[in-house]
Protein backbone atom coordinates (compact mmCIF):
# COMPACT_ATOMS: atom_id res chain seq x y z
CA UNK A 1 0.00 0.00 0.00
CA UNK A 2 1.48 3.36 -0.99
CA UNK A 3 1.78 6.24 1.48
CA UNK A 4 -0.82 8.50 -0.23
CA UNK A 5 -3.24 5.54 -0.28
CA UNK A 6 -2.57 4.96 3.39
CA UNK A 7 -3.41 8.57 4.22
CA UNK A 8 -6.46 8.57 1.98
CA UNK A 9 -7.79 5.37 3.50
CA UNK A 10 -7.06 6.45 7.09
CA UNK A 11 -8.84 9.80 6.74
CA UNK A 12 -11.77 8.38 4.80
CA UNK A 13 -12.26 5.68 7.45
CA UNK A 14 -12.44 8.41 10.10
CA UNK A 15 -15.37 9.91 8.24
CA UNK A 16 -17.29 6.64 8.43
CA UNK A 17 -18.03 6.89 12.15
CA UNK A 18 -18.26 10.61 12.41
CA UNK A 19 -19.66 11.07 15.91
CA UNK A 20 -17.50 8.48 17.59
CA UNK A 21 -14.31 9.62 15.91
CA UNK A 22 -15.14 13.28 16.51
CA UNK A 23 -15.51 12.63 20.24
CA UNK A 24 -12.18 10.82 20.34
CA UNK A 25 -10.54 13.64 18.40
CA UNK A 26 -12.14 16.14 20.80
CA UNK A 27 -10.45 14.40 23.71
CA UNK A 28 -7.10 14.86 21.94
CA UNK A 29 -8.01 18.47 21.10
CA UNK A 30 -8.58 19.28 24.78
CA UNK A 31 -5.25 17.80 25.81
CA UNK A 32 -3.30 19.36 22.96
CA UNK A 33 -5.02 22.72 23.45
CA UNK A 34 -4.26 22.80 27.17
CA UNK A 35 -0.62 21.86 26.75
CA UNK A 36 0.03 24.32 23.94
CA UNK A 37 -1.86 27.24 25.49
CA UNK A 38 -0.14 26.87 28.87
CA UNK A 39 3.30 26.50 27.31
CA UNK A 40 2.64 29.48 25.03
CA UNK A 41 1.64 31.69 27.96
CA UNK A 42 4.74 30.55 29.79
CA UNK A 43 6.96 31.40 26.84
CA UNK A 44 5.31 34.81 26.53
CA UNK A 45 5.75 35.79 30.17
CA UNK A 46 9.24 34.33 30.39
CA UNK A 47 10.26 36.13 27.21
CA UNK A 48 9.00 39.39 28.60
CA UNK A 49 10.83 38.97 31.89
CA UNK A 50 13.99 37.91 30.05
CA UNK A 51 13.84 41.04 27.90
CA UNK A 52 13.56 43.13 31.04
CA UNK A 53 16.53 41.35 32.60
CA UNK A 54 18.60 41.90 29.44
CA UNK A 55 17.78 45.59 29.44
CA UNK A 56 19.21 45.88 32.95
CA UNK A 57 21.96 43.30 32.51
CA UNK A 58 22.90 42.87 28.83
CA UNK A 59 23.97 39.41 27.72
CA UNK A 60 27.51 40.54 26.86
CA UNK A 61 28.11 42.03 30.30
CA UNK A 62 29.70 40.50 33.37
CA UNK A 63 29.18 42.30 36.66
CA UNK A 64 32.30 42.01 38.83
CA UNK A 65 32.39 42.76 42.56
CA UNK A 66 35.11 42.78 45.18
CA UNK A 67 33.12 40.32 47.31
CA UNK A 68 32.73 36.81 45.88
CA UNK A 69 29.58 36.24 47.97
CA UNK A 70 27.64 39.33 46.99
CA UNK A 71 25.99 38.02 43.84
CA UNK A 72 25.16 34.61 45.19
CA UNK A 73 21.53 33.97 44.54
CA UNK A 74 19.55 31.29 46.24
CA UNK A 75 17.73 30.58 49.44
CA UNK A 76 20.98 30.61 51.42
CA UNK A 77 21.97 33.95 49.95
CA UNK A 78 18.61 35.42 50.90
CA UNK A 79 19.00 34.09 54.45
CA UNK A 80 15.65 32.39 54.13
CA UNK A 81 15.13 28.74 54.98
CA UNK A 82 18.49 27.68 53.54
CA UNK A 83 21.70 26.71 55.24
CA UNK A 84 23.54 29.74 56.73
CA UNK A 85 26.11 30.74 54.19
CA UNK A 86 29.80 30.77 54.98
CA UNK A 87 31.59 34.08 54.47
CA UNK A 88 34.46 33.79 51.97
CA UNK A 89 38.07 34.50 53.00
CA UNK A 90 38.66 37.86 54.62
CA UNK A 91 35.33 39.43 53.59
CA UNK A 92 33.49 41.40 56.22
CA UNK A 93 30.10 39.98 55.30
CA UNK A 94 28.13 38.44 52.48
CA UNK A 95 26.65 41.72 51.29
CA UNK A 96 29.36 44.23 52.20
CA UNK A 97 31.65 45.66 49.55
CA UNK A 98 35.16 47.07 49.68
CA UNK A 99 36.57 49.07 46.79
CA UNK A 100 38.42 46.90 44.30
CA UNK A 101 42.17 47.32 44.23
CA UNK A 102 43.82 48.82 41.16
CA UNK A 103 45.58 45.52 40.67
CA UNK A 104 42.29 43.61 40.64
CA UNK A 105 40.85 46.04 38.10
CA UNK A 106 43.95 45.61 35.92
CA UNK A 107 43.63 41.83 36.15
CA UNK A 108 40.03 42.03 35.00
CA UNK A 109 40.96 44.41 32.19
CA UNK A 110 43.69 42.00 31.09
CA UNK A 111 41.37 39.02 30.70
CA UNK A 112 40.84 37.69 27.19
CA UNK A 113 37.65 38.88 25.45
CA UNK A 114 37.23 41.82 27.85
CA UNK A 115 36.40 44.84 25.74
CA UNK A 116 35.40 47.59 28.11
CA UNK A 117 35.46 48.03 31.88
CA UNK A 118 33.32 50.70 33.54
CA UNK A 119 32.61 51.39 37.19
CA UNK A 120 29.11 50.38 38.20
CA UNK A 121 27.81 53.61 39.64
CA UNK A 122 25.75 53.36 42.78
CA UNK A 123 23.51 56.20 43.74
CA UNK A 124 20.05 56.83 44.99
CA UNK A 125 18.21 59.94 43.83
CA UNK A 126 15.25 61.18 45.90
CA UNK A 127 12.98 62.63 43.26
CA UNK A 128 12.58 64.27 39.91
CA UNK A 129 10.48 67.26 38.94
CA UNK A 130 9.87 69.25 35.85
CA UNK A 131 11.55 72.66 35.79
CA UNK A 132 9.03 75.20 37.00
CA UNK A 133 6.84 72.63 38.71
CA UNK A 134 6.77 71.69 42.39
CA UNK A 135 5.27 68.22 41.82
CA UNK A 136 7.98 65.70 42.61
CA UNK A 137 8.07 62.08 41.51
CA UNK A 138 10.00 58.98 42.45
CA UNK A 139 12.93 58.10 40.27
CA UNK A 140 15.54 55.42 39.76
CA UNK A 141 18.53 57.22 38.45
CA UNK A 142 20.63 54.96 36.30
CA UNK A 143 23.94 56.12 34.89
CA UNK A 144 24.74 53.71 32.04
CA UNK A 145 27.59 53.21 29.61
CA UNK A 146 26.83 54.31 26.09
CA UNK A 147 26.53 50.80 24.60
CA UNK A 148 23.88 49.91 27.15
CA UNK A 149 21.94 53.13 26.62
CA UNK A 150 21.69 52.22 22.97
CA UNK A 151 19.94 48.94 23.76
CA UNK A 152 16.85 50.78 24.94
CA UNK A 153 14.31 51.62 22.23
CA UNK A 154 13.46 55.30 22.04
CA UNK A 155 10.08 56.59 20.91
CA UNK A 156 11.51 60.08 20.51
CA UNK A 157 14.82 61.97 20.64
CA UNK A 158 18.40 60.67 20.64
CA UNK A 159 20.82 58.62 22.70
CA UNK A 160 23.42 60.09 25.06
CA UNK A 161 27.14 59.29 25.05
CA UNK A 162 29.52 58.60 27.94
CA UNK A 163 30.75 62.17 27.83
CA UNK A 164 27.35 63.84 27.59
CA UNK A 165 26.84 66.40 30.32
CA UNK A 166 23.47 67.61 31.59
CA UNK A 167 21.30 65.50 29.30
CA UNK A 168 19.00 62.60 30.14
CA UNK A 169 16.58 60.06 28.67
CA UNK A 170 13.33 59.60 30.57
CA UNK A 171 11.07 56.56 30.93
CA UNK A 172 7.89 56.70 28.88
CA UNK A 173 5.71 56.67 32.00
CA UNK A 174 6.94 60.17 32.96
CA UNK A 175 5.18 61.68 29.94
CA UNK A 176 1.84 61.22 31.60
CA UNK A 177 2.79 62.53 35.05
CA UNK A 178 4.66 65.51 33.60
CA UNK A 179 1.57 66.32 31.52
CA UNK A 180 3.05 65.83 28.04
CA UNK A 181 0.64 64.69 25.35
CA UNK A 182 3.37 63.41 23.03
CA UNK A 183 6.98 62.23 23.48
CA UNK A 184 8.18 65.00 21.15
CA UNK A 185 6.73 67.60 23.48
CA UNK A 186 9.04 66.45 26.28
CA UNK A 187 12.23 66.95 24.26
CA UNK A 188 14.26 69.99 25.28
CA UNK A 189 12.44 70.41 28.61
CA UNK A 190 14.41 70.58 31.85
CA UNK A 191 14.06 68.17 34.76
CA UNK A 192 15.55 68.61 38.24
CA UNK A 193 16.86 65.51 40.00
CA UNK A 194 17.29 65.85 43.73
CA UNK A 195 19.93 63.80 45.57
CA UNK A 196 20.27 63.55 49.35
CA UNK A 197 23.47 62.09 50.74
CA UNK A 198 23.54 58.39 51.71
CA UNK A 199 24.01 59.19 55.40
CA UNK A 200 20.33 60.10 55.50
CA UNK A 201 19.48 56.43 54.93
CA UNK A 202 20.50 55.69 58.51
CA UNK A 203 19.18 58.99 59.91
CA UNK A 204 22.42 60.98 59.98
CA UNK A 205 22.65 64.67 59.01
CA UNK A 206 23.04 64.97 55.23
CA UNK A 207 23.09 67.59 52.47
CA UNK A 208 20.73 67.77 49.53
CA UNK A 209 21.64 68.92 46.04
CA UNK A 210 19.73 69.48 42.80
CA UNK A 211 21.01 68.52 39.36
CA UNK A 212 19.45 69.88 36.20
CA UNK A 213 19.10 67.85 32.99
CA UNK A 214 17.66 68.49 29.55
CA UNK A 215 15.40 65.74 28.23
CA UNK A 216 16.89 64.50 24.94
CA UNK A 217 15.13 61.16 24.62
CA UNK A 218 12.06 59.18 25.70
CA UNK A 219 12.11 55.36 26.00
CA UNK A 220 9.39 52.95 24.93
CA UNK A 221 7.33 51.50 27.76
CA UNK A 222 9.19 48.91 29.81
CA UNK A 223 8.87 47.61 33.36
CA UNK A 224 11.48 50.22 34.41
CA UNK A 225 8.83 52.89 34.70
CA UNK A 226 10.77 55.33 36.89
CA UNK A 227 14.05 55.17 35.05
CA UNK A 228 16.00 58.29 34.12
CA UNK A 229 19.16 57.48 32.19
CA UNK A 230 22.15 59.81 32.53
CA UNK A 231 25.71 59.51 31.27
CA UNK A 232 28.54 57.90 33.24
CA UNK A 233 30.20 61.31 33.66
CA UNK A 234 27.13 62.85 35.28
CA UNK A 235 26.46 59.68 37.26
CA UNK A 236 29.93 59.68 38.78
CA UNK A 237 29.56 63.26 39.87
CA UNK A 238 26.17 62.66 41.51
CA UNK A 239 27.41 59.44 43.12
CA UNK A 240 30.44 61.21 44.68
CA UNK A 241 28.11 63.72 46.29
CA UNK A 242 25.64 61.03 47.35
CA UNK A 243 28.40 58.95 48.95
CA UNK A 244 30.13 62.09 50.28
CA UNK A 245 33.40 60.75 48.84
CA UNK A 246 35.02 63.14 46.35
CA UNK A 247 37.71 60.60 45.40
CA UNK A 248 35.24 57.83 44.48
CA UNK A 249 35.84 56.20 41.04
CA UNK A 250 39.40 57.55 41.00
CA UNK A 251 42.62 55.63 41.56
CA UNK A 252 42.43 56.53 45.25
CA UNK A 253 39.05 54.87 45.78
CA UNK A 254 38.13 52.68 42.82
CA UNK A 255 34.65 51.26 42.31
CA UNK A 256 33.48 48.23 44.26
CA UNK A 257 31.53 46.86 41.31
CA UNK A 258 32.60 46.83 37.67
CA UNK A 259 30.46 46.49 34.62
CA UNK A 260 32.61 44.49 32.21
CA UNK A 261 31.67 44.22 28.58
CA UNK A 262 33.01 41.26 26.60
CA UNK A 263 33.44 41.10 22.82
CA UNK A 264 30.57 38.66 22.31
CA UNK A 265 27.85 37.34 24.59
CA UNK A 266 29.11 33.79 24.03
CA UNK A 267 32.20 34.68 26.06
CA UNK A 268 30.33 36.13 29.04
CA UNK A 269 30.28 32.91 31.06
CA UNK A 270 33.91 32.13 30.22
CA UNK A 271 35.03 35.57 31.42
CA UNK A 272 32.80 35.22 34.48
CA UNK A 273 34.49 31.98 35.50
CA UNK A 274 37.94 33.58 35.06
CA UNK A 275 36.78 36.46 37.25
CA UNK A 276 35.69 33.92 39.83
CA UNK A 277 39.17 32.37 39.69
CA UNK A 278 40.56 35.80 40.59
CA UNK A 279 38.60 35.51 43.83
CA UNK A 280 36.01 38.11 42.86
CA UNK A 281 32.24 38.00 42.70
CA UNK A 282 30.56 37.77 39.30
CA UNK A 283 27.14 37.52 37.73
CA UNK A 284 25.93 37.41 34.12
CA UNK A 285 22.51 37.67 32.55
CA UNK A 286 22.55 33.94 31.84
CA UNK A 287 22.75 33.34 35.63
CA UNK A 288 19.62 35.41 36.17
CA UNK A 289 17.86 34.04 33.08
CA UNK A 290 18.79 30.55 34.20
CA UNK A 291 16.99 31.08 37.50
CA UNK A 292 13.95 32.55 35.71
CA UNK A 293 14.05 29.65 33.24
CA UNK A 294 14.18 27.08 36.05
CA UNK A 295 11.23 28.64 37.85
CA UNK A 296 9.19 28.86 34.65
CA UNK A 297 10.18 25.35 33.65
CA UNK A 298 8.77 24.02 36.92
CA UNK A 299 5.58 26.10 36.64
CA UNK A 300 5.08 25.02 33.02
CA UNK A 301 5.71 21.39 33.81
CA UNK A 302 3.08 21.48 36.56
CA UNK A 303 0.55 23.24 34.32
CA UNK A 304 1.31 21.01 31.34
CA UNK A 305 0.74 17.97 33.52
CA UNK A 306 -2.98 18.71 33.37
CA UNK A 307 -2.84 18.72 29.59
CA UNK A 308 -0.76 15.54 29.60
CA UNK A 309 -3.31 13.83 31.84
CA UNK A 310 -6.00 14.85 29.33
CA UNK A 311 -3.84 13.39 26.55
CA UNK A 312 -3.41 10.18 28.53
CA UNK A 313 -7.19 9.85 28.85
CA UNK A 314 -7.53 10.67 25.15
CA UNK A 315 -5.12 7.85 24.31
CA UNK A 316 -7.42 5.40 26.14
CA UNK A 317 -10.26 6.74 24.07
CA UNK A 318 -8.22 6.11 20.90
CA UNK A 319 -7.56 2.50 21.98
CA UNK A 320 -11.29 2.08 22.61
CA UNK A 321 -12.33 3.62 19.30
CA UNK A 322 -9.93 1.49 17.30
CA UNK A 323 -10.84 -1.76 19.06
CA UNK A 324 -14.50 -1.04 18.23
CA UNK A 325 -13.46 -0.32 14.71
CA UNK A 326 -11.58 -3.62 14.42
CA UNK A 327 -14.72 -5.47 15.57
CA UNK A 328 -16.97 -3.65 13.14
CA UNK A 329 -14.65 -4.13 10.25
CA UNK A 330 -13.64 -7.71 10.86
CA UNK A 331 -15.23 -8.83 7.60
CA UNK A 332 -13.66 -5.95 5.71
CA UNK A 333 -10.28 -6.96 7.12
CA UNK A 334 -10.95 -10.50 5.87
CA UNK A 335 -11.71 -9.21 2.38
CA UNK A 336 -8.62 -7.00 2.37
CA UNK A 337 -6.50 -10.02 3.30
CA UNK A 338 -8.18 -12.16 0.64
CA UNK A 339 -7.39 -9.63 -2.07
CA UNK A 340 -3.78 -9.24 -1.03
CA UNK A 341 -3.30 -7.21 2.16
CA UNK A 342 -0.51 -8.64 4.34
CA UNK A 343 -0.56 -8.56 8.14
CA UNK A 344 1.86 -5.67 7.98
CA UNK A 345 -0.45 -3.71 5.70
CA UNK A 346 -3.44 -4.20 8.03
CA UNK A 347 -1.31 -3.23 11.00
CA UNK A 348 -0.05 -0.05 9.37
CA UNK A 349 -3.56 0.80 8.17
CA UNK A 350 -4.97 0.83 11.70
CA UNK A 351 -1.89 2.56 13.06
CA UNK A 352 -2.37 5.24 10.40
CA UNK A 353 -5.96 5.68 11.50
CA UNK A 354 -4.80 6.21 15.07
CA UNK A 355 -2.10 8.59 13.86
CA UNK A 356 -4.72 10.51 11.88
CA UNK A 357 -6.81 10.95 15.04
CA UNK A 358 -3.75 12.18 16.93
CA UNK A 359 -2.67 14.47 14.13
CA UNK A 360 -6.10 16.03 13.64
CA UNK A 361 -6.63 16.37 17.39
CA UNK A 362 -3.21 17.98 17.81
CA UNK A 363 -3.63 20.34 14.87
CA UNK A 364 -7.11 21.45 15.90
CA UNK A 365 -6.02 21.73 19.54
CA UNK A 366 -3.05 23.94 18.68
CA UNK A 367 -5.20 26.05 16.34
CA UNK A 368 -7.81 26.62 19.07
CA UNK A 369 -5.08 27.40 21.61
CA UNK A 370 -3.55 29.85 19.13
CA UNK A 371 -6.86 31.67 18.75
CA UNK A 372 -7.45 31.64 22.53
CA UNK A 373 -3.92 32.92 23.08
CA UNK A 374 -4.58 35.72 20.62
CA UNK A 375 -7.79 36.65 22.44
CA UNK A 376 -6.07 36.57 25.85
CA UNK A 377 -3.32 38.71 24.37
CA UNK A 378 -5.78 41.31 23.08
CA UNK A 379 -7.91 41.34 26.22
CA UNK A 380 -4.91 41.70 28.51
CA UNK A 381 -3.45 44.50 26.41
CA UNK A 382 -6.75 46.31 26.52
CA UNK A 383 -6.86 45.95 30.32
CA UNK A 384 -4.13 45.19 32.81
CA UNK A 385 -1.23 45.16 30.35
CA UNK A 386 -2.27 48.39 28.67
CA UNK A 387 1.15 49.97 29.26
CA UNK A 388 3.08 47.19 27.58
CA UNK A 389 1.97 47.14 23.99
CA UNK A 390 5.02 45.21 22.81
CA UNK A 391 4.45 42.41 25.30
CA UNK A 392 2.99 39.23 23.77
CA UNK A 393 1.53 37.23 26.63
CA UNK A 394 0.88 34.25 24.35
CA UNK A 395 3.71 33.25 22.05
CA UNK A 396 3.56 30.35 19.57
CA UNK A 397 7.02 29.59 18.19
CA UNK A 398 7.10 27.05 15.36
CA UNK A 399 8.60 24.37 17.58
CA UNK A 400 5.62 24.52 19.93
CA UNK A 401 3.17 24.01 17.07
CA UNK A 402 5.19 21.20 15.50
CA UNK A 403 6.04 19.71 18.88
CA UNK A 404 2.47 19.45 20.16
CA UNK A 405 1.19 17.96 16.90
CA UNK A 406 4.09 15.50 16.88
CA UNK A 407 3.41 14.64 20.53
CA UNK A 408 -0.29 13.89 19.98
CA UNK A 409 0.51 11.92 16.83
CA UNK A 410 3.11 9.81 18.62
CA UNK A 411 0.78 9.20 21.59
CA UNK A 412 -1.97 8.17 19.14
CA UNK A 413 0.38 5.84 17.27
CA UNK A 414 1.35 4.18 20.55
CA UNK A 415 -2.33 3.88 21.49
CA UNK A 416 -3.13 2.22 18.17
CA UNK A 417 -0.39 -0.43 18.41
CA UNK A 418 -2.55 -2.92 20.28
CA UNK A 419 -5.72 -2.55 18.16
CA UNK A 420 -3.60 -2.68 15.01
CA UNK A 421 -1.87 -5.81 16.25
CA UNK A 422 -5.26 -7.39 16.87
CA UNK A 423 -6.53 -6.47 13.44
CA UNK A 424 -3.38 -7.84 11.79
CA UNK A 425 -3.65 -11.11 13.68
CA UNK A 426 -7.24 -11.86 12.62
CA UNK A 427 -7.66 -15.13 10.76
CA UNK A 428 -8.88 -14.21 7.26
CA UNK A 429 -11.19 -17.21 6.94
CA UNK A 430 -12.85 -16.55 10.31
CA UNK A 431 -13.11 -12.85 9.45
CA UNK A 432 -14.85 -13.56 6.16
CA UNK A 433 -17.43 -15.64 8.01
CA UNK A 434 -17.89 -13.01 10.75
CA UNK A 435 -21.37 -11.57 10.93
Amino acid at each position, binding site marked *: *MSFPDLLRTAFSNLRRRKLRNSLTILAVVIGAGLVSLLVSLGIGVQGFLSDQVRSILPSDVVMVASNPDVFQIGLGGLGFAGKPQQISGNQTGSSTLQPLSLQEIQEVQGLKHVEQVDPFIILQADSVRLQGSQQRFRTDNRPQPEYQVKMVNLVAGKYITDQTHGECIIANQYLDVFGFTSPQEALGKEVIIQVTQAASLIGLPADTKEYSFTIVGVTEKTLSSTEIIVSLTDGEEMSRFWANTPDLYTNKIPAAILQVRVDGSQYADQVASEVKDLGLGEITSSDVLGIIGTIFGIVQAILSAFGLIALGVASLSIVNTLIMSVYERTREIGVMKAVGASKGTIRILFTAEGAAIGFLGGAIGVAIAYVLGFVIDRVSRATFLKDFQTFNISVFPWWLIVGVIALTTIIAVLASLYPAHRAAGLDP*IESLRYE
Partner: protein
Amino acid sequence: MGEETINALAGINLEIGQGEFVSIVGPSGSGKSTLLNIIGGLDSPTKGNIIVDGQDLSKASDSELSSYRNKKIGFVFQTFNLQPTYNALENVALPLVFARVPFGKRSQIAKEALETVGLGDRVRHKPSELSGGERQRVGIARALVNNPKILLADEPTGNLDSKARERIMELLAELNKERGLTLLLVTHDLESAKSADRMLHMRDGQITESAERK
Protein backbone atom coordinates in the same frame (compact mmCIF):
# COMPACT_ATOMS: atom_id res chain seq x y z
CA MET B 1 -10.86 -33.55 27.95
CA GLY B 2 -8.49 -31.98 25.49
CA GLU B 3 -8.37 -30.52 22.09
CA GLU B 4 -9.25 -32.98 19.43
CA THR B 5 -7.59 -32.63 16.09
CA ILE B 6 -9.98 -32.83 13.21
CA ASN B 7 -8.51 -33.25 9.77
CA ALA B 8 -10.49 -31.01 7.45
CA LEU B 9 -8.54 -32.50 4.62
CA ALA B 10 -6.87 -35.90 4.68
CA GLY B 11 -4.64 -37.47 2.08
CA ILE B 12 -5.68 -35.39 -0.84
CA ASN B 13 -3.57 -35.75 -3.91
CA LEU B 14 -4.84 -33.47 -6.59
CA GLU B 15 -3.40 -31.93 -9.70
CA ILE B 16 -5.18 -29.20 -11.61
CA GLY B 17 -3.99 -28.08 -15.01
CA GLN B 18 -3.82 -24.51 -16.22
CA GLY B 19 -7.08 -23.30 -17.74
CA GLU B 20 -9.02 -26.20 -16.29
CA PHE B 21 -12.54 -25.75 -14.88
CA VAL B 22 -12.95 -27.95 -11.82
CA SER B 23 -16.05 -28.09 -9.69
CA ILE B 24 -16.14 -29.47 -6.18
CA VAL B 25 -19.31 -30.80 -4.64
CA GLY B 26 -20.03 -32.48 -1.37
CA PRO B 27 -22.00 -32.11 1.86
CA SER B 28 -21.31 -29.30 4.34
CA GLY B 29 -18.16 -29.86 6.33
CA SER B 30 -16.67 -32.15 3.73
CA GLY B 31 -13.66 -29.87 3.33
CA LYS B 32 -14.55 -28.19 0.05
CA SER B 33 -14.01 -24.66 1.33
CA THR B 34 -10.87 -25.65 3.24
CA LEU B 35 -9.42 -27.03 0.03
CA LEU B 36 -10.28 -23.81 -1.76
CA ASN B 37 -8.82 -21.66 1.03
CA ILE B 38 -5.60 -23.65 1.02
CA ILE B 39 -5.25 -23.30 -2.74
CA GLY B 40 -6.06 -19.60 -2.34
CA GLY B 41 -3.32 -19.08 0.25
CA LEU B 42 -5.73 -18.06 3.02
CA ASP B 43 -5.06 -21.23 4.96
CA SER B 44 -1.96 -23.40 5.25
CA PRO B 45 -1.88 -27.17 5.42
CA THR B 46 -0.51 -28.60 8.67
CA LYS B 47 1.16 -31.31 6.64
CA GLY B 48 1.90 -31.81 2.99
CA ASN B 49 2.67 -29.48 0.15
CA ILE B 50 0.65 -27.25 -2.08
CA ILE B 51 2.36 -26.06 -5.19
CA VAL B 52 0.80 -23.47 -7.44
CA ASP B 53 2.57 -22.18 -10.52
CA GLY B 54 5.84 -23.61 -9.20
CA GLN B 55 5.51 -21.87 -5.80
CA ASP B 56 5.30 -23.99 -2.65
CA LEU B 57 2.62 -22.25 -0.56
CA SER B 58 3.20 -24.40 2.51
CA LYS B 59 6.62 -22.77 2.90
CA ALA B 60 5.58 -19.21 2.02
CA SER B 61 5.73 -16.31 4.50
CA ASP B 62 2.77 -14.04 5.23
CA SER B 63 3.94 -11.38 2.82
CA GLU B 64 4.65 -13.94 0.11
CA LEU B 65 1.18 -15.42 0.61
CA SER B 66 -0.52 -12.02 0.50
CA SER B 67 1.33 -11.11 -2.67
CA TYR B 68 0.30 -14.52 -4.11
CA ARG B 69 -3.37 -13.84 -3.25
CA ASN B 70 -3.06 -10.42 -4.75
CA LYS B 71 -1.46 -11.38 -8.05
CA LYS B 72 -2.41 -14.96 -8.86
CA ILE B 73 -5.75 -15.56 -7.17
CA GLY B 74 -9.21 -14.08 -7.57
CA PHE B 75 -11.75 -14.92 -4.87
CA VAL B 76 -15.48 -14.90 -5.55
CA PHE B 77 -17.58 -15.20 -2.39
CA GLN B 78 -21.10 -16.42 -1.78
CA THR B 79 -21.97 -13.27 0.20
CA PHE B 80 -20.12 -11.01 -2.28
CA ASN B 81 -18.19 -9.31 0.56
CA LEU B 82 -18.37 -5.90 -1.02
CA GLN B 83 -17.53 -2.81 1.00
CA PRO B 84 -20.92 -1.05 1.47
CA THR B 85 -19.38 2.44 1.71
CA TYR B 86 -17.44 2.05 -1.52
CA ASN B 87 -19.01 2.29 -4.97
CA ALA B 88 -18.58 -0.47 -7.55
CA LEU B 89 -15.41 1.08 -8.96
CA GLU B 90 -13.77 1.47 -5.54
CA ASN B 91 -14.68 -2.09 -4.59
CA VAL B 92 -13.14 -3.44 -7.76
CA ALA B 93 -10.04 -1.28 -7.36
CA LEU B 94 -9.28 -2.57 -3.83
CA PRO B 95 -6.80 -5.30 -4.89
CA LEU B 96 -4.97 -2.69 -6.99
CA VAL B 97 -4.41 -0.59 -3.84
CA PHE B 98 -2.45 -3.44 -2.30
CA ALA B 99 -0.65 -4.02 -5.61
CA ARG B 100 0.54 -0.38 -5.34
CA VAL B 101 -1.00 0.60 -8.66
CA PRO B 102 -1.10 4.43 -8.84
CA PHE B 103 -4.43 6.11 -8.11
CA GLY B 104 -5.16 7.37 -11.62
CA LYS B 105 -4.38 4.06 -13.30
CA ARG B 106 -6.52 2.15 -10.83
CA SER B 107 -9.88 3.57 -11.91
CA GLN B 108 -9.05 2.84 -15.52
CA ILE B 109 -8.20 -0.81 -14.86
CA ALA B 110 -11.17 -1.24 -12.52
CA LYS B 111 -13.51 0.28 -15.08
CA GLU B 112 -12.27 -2.17 -17.70
CA ALA B 113 -12.93 -5.06 -15.31
CA LEU B 114 -16.46 -3.77 -14.70
CA GLU B 115 -16.99 -3.57 -18.45
CA THR B 116 -15.85 -7.17 -18.80
CA VAL B 117 -18.63 -8.29 -16.44
CA GLY B 118 -21.13 -6.06 -18.19
CA LEU B 119 -21.39 -3.33 -15.54
CA GLY B 120 -19.71 -0.49 -17.43
CA ASP B 121 -22.71 1.71 -16.70
CA ARG B 122 -22.82 0.98 -12.94
CA VAL B 123 -19.35 2.17 -11.81
CA ARG B 124 -20.61 4.84 -9.39
CA HIS B 125 -23.31 2.71 -7.81
CA LYS B 126 -23.00 1.56 -4.21
CA PRO B 127 -23.66 -2.15 -3.55
CA SER B 128 -27.00 -1.24 -1.94
CA GLU B 129 -28.10 0.25 -5.25
CA LEU B 130 -27.36 -2.96 -7.17
CA SER B 131 -29.27 -6.23 -7.55
CA GLY B 132 -27.86 -9.50 -6.19
CA GLY B 133 -26.65 -10.58 -9.60
CA GLU B 134 -25.03 -7.23 -10.21
CA ARG B 135 -23.29 -7.35 -6.83
CA GLN B 136 -21.81 -10.71 -7.68
CA ARG B 137 -20.62 -9.28 -10.99
CA VAL B 138 -18.83 -6.55 -9.04
CA GLY B 139 -17.36 -9.32 -6.89
CA ILE B 140 -16.17 -11.13 -10.03
CA ALA B 141 -14.75 -7.92 -11.49
CA ARG B 142 -12.79 -7.43 -8.25
CA ALA B 143 -11.48 -11.00 -8.57
CA LEU B 144 -10.40 -10.31 -12.16
CA VAL B 145 -8.88 -6.90 -11.75
CA ASN B 146 -5.31 -8.01 -11.05
CA ASN B 147 -5.29 -10.50 -13.95
CA PRO B 148 -5.04 -13.61 -11.76
CA LYS B 149 -4.31 -17.10 -13.07
CA ILE B 150 -6.84 -18.83 -10.87
CA LEU B 151 -10.40 -17.92 -9.97
CA LEU B 152 -11.68 -19.48 -6.74
CA ALA B 153 -15.44 -19.32 -6.41
CA ASP B 154 -17.04 -20.53 -3.19
CA GLU B 155 -20.78 -20.94 -3.76
CA PRO B 156 -20.88 -17.87 -6.00
CA THR B 157 -24.54 -18.39 -6.86
CA GLY B 158 -25.69 -19.51 -3.41
CA ASN B 159 -27.44 -16.21 -2.68
CA LEU B 160 -28.95 -15.63 -6.12
CA ASP B 161 -32.22 -16.45 -7.84
CA SER B 162 -32.20 -18.96 -10.69
CA LYS B 163 -32.03 -16.38 -13.44
CA ALA B 164 -29.09 -14.52 -11.92
CA ARG B 165 -27.47 -17.84 -11.15
CA GLU B 166 -27.52 -18.84 -14.80
CA ARG B 167 -25.99 -15.59 -15.93
CA ILE B 168 -23.23 -15.70 -13.33
CA MET B 169 -22.41 -19.27 -14.33
CA GLU B 170 -22.32 -18.20 -17.97
CA LEU B 171 -19.95 -15.38 -17.10
CA LEU B 172 -17.63 -17.67 -15.13
CA ALA B 173 -17.59 -20.27 -17.89
CA GLU B 174 -16.85 -17.57 -20.42
CA LEU B 175 -13.92 -16.24 -18.38
CA ASN B 176 -12.59 -19.79 -18.14
CA LYS B 177 -12.81 -20.40 -21.86
CA GLU B 178 -11.92 -17.06 -23.33
CA ARG B 179 -9.30 -15.90 -20.86
CA GLY B 180 -7.90 -19.31 -20.05
CA LEU B 181 -8.48 -18.73 -16.34
CA THR B 182 -8.24 -21.78 -14.15
CA LEU B 183 -11.61 -21.96 -12.39
CA LEU B 184 -12.33 -23.80 -9.16
CA LEU B 185 -15.98 -23.79 -8.24
CA VAL B 186 -17.36 -25.01 -4.94
CA THR B 187 -21.09 -25.50 -5.17
CA HIS B 188 -24.12 -27.34 -3.90
CA ASP B 189 -25.76 -26.98 -7.28
CA LEU B 190 -25.16 -30.12 -9.30
CA GLU B 191 -26.40 -28.43 -12.46
CA SER B 192 -23.63 -25.83 -12.24
CA ALA B 193 -21.09 -28.42 -11.20
CA LYS B 194 -21.73 -30.52 -14.23
CA SER B 195 -20.69 -27.75 -16.61
CA ALA B 196 -17.09 -28.13 -15.36
CA ASP B 197 -14.34 -30.07 -17.14
CA ARG B 198 -13.95 -32.19 -14.04
CA MET B 199 -16.20 -32.66 -11.05
CA LEU B 200 -14.79 -33.71 -7.67
CA HIS B 201 -16.92 -35.21 -4.92
CA MET B 202 -15.69 -34.68 -1.40
CA ARG B 203 -16.61 -36.30 1.87
CA ASP B 204 -14.85 -36.16 5.23
CA GLY B 205 -11.90 -34.31 3.82
CA GLN B 206 -11.29 -36.75 1.03
CA ILE B 207 -11.98 -36.79 -2.66
CA THR B 208 -14.26 -39.76 -3.15
CA GLU B 209 -15.00 -39.45 -6.81
CA SER B 210 -13.62 -37.63 -9.77
CA ALA B 211 -15.64 -37.41 -12.93
CA GLU B 212 -14.42 -36.04 -16.24
CA ARG B 213 -16.96 -34.53 -18.54
CA LYS B 214 -17.59 -36.67 -21.56
